[in-house]
């Protein structure tokens, strides 16, 4: 079965090397850094193929997520799977961060 990530040979539009050039933003680099750090020799918390498995598990959402949001989702799920933090801890943290970011935005 062809997974959502398996684009090889499918019909697709022209490549636009001018429009689709993009200097990574600081936010994207931060997500990139988190992934590279959990992969690194010192931590070895995950491997590239595990990150791929998580991204492919997005199913049809794979196409909707921007690239680094897929990565972020993969990091989050991997850390849950490996019990680095729990779903309860993540939920509590997200509620706290949401309140903080919304206060920053409105303040």
């Amino acid at each position: 079965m062809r997974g959502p990530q398996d684009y090889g040979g499918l019909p697709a539009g022209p490549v636009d090397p001018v429009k689709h050039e993009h200097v990574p933003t600081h936010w994207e680099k931060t997500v990139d850094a988190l992934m590279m750090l959990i992969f690194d020799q010192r931590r070895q918390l995950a491997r590239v193929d595990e990150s791929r498995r998580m991204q492919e598990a997005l199913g049809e959402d794979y196409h909707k997520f921007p690239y680094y949001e897929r990565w972020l989702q993969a990091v989050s799920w991997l850390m849950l799977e490996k019990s680095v933090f729990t779903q309860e801890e993540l939920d509590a943290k997200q509620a706290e961060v949401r309140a903080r970011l919304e206060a920053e935005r409105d303040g």
Partner: protein
Amino acid sequence: MSNHHDHDHGPTHTHDGKPIQEDELPSIEAQILETSVRELLIEKGVVSGEDIRRAIEAMDTRGESLGAKIVVRAWTDPEYKDRLLNSSDDAIREFGINMSPMELCVVENTDEVHNMVVCTLCSCYPRPILGIPPAWYKRRDYRARAVREPRAVLQEFGTELPDGKQVRVHDSNADLRYLVLPERPAGTEDWTADQLEALVTRDSMIGVSDVRRPGEADA
């Protein structure tokens, strides 16, 4: 929607030829998740803020100029070129680059063969050398078509190959990454390493274009 998005999308390049960056923040949900994951990892002692800062710094040192040094060494030192093609991981260690746990395979462009690199399944790329892959490399258009109609894709990059030239497309994966050793242009026999390095572009090491022609380089 914020005001600066209301205008029509105008020119995609500034006067000095650099693409205009769309430096948008991600969705609020993505910002919340990223901040939460990062703070939890710091609280758990898995990473520190300093680790993240250093990882970003290291990322910024990779790119075209590092790859160009390797290519020029291979152009100017036949013994090194032989090692680069036959035991790529060892050869790049001399430049302080460690591919582990991945493997590197360097493929050589010649009169007869043009090599081109893709990752149809994701965005696998020789990151320890070239850094973060370009946006087009990660997009469906390139991933889907590079393996079906590489010559058409090359034309979209402005690369026209002679009819008789064979195209080899290399599909990267999690464990094996490719780097193209482009052809050294004729007429550069007495050039210095610095001059030669200025010819080597990121895209020439992905194999979607040739190196700059002598006379095109800034240096």
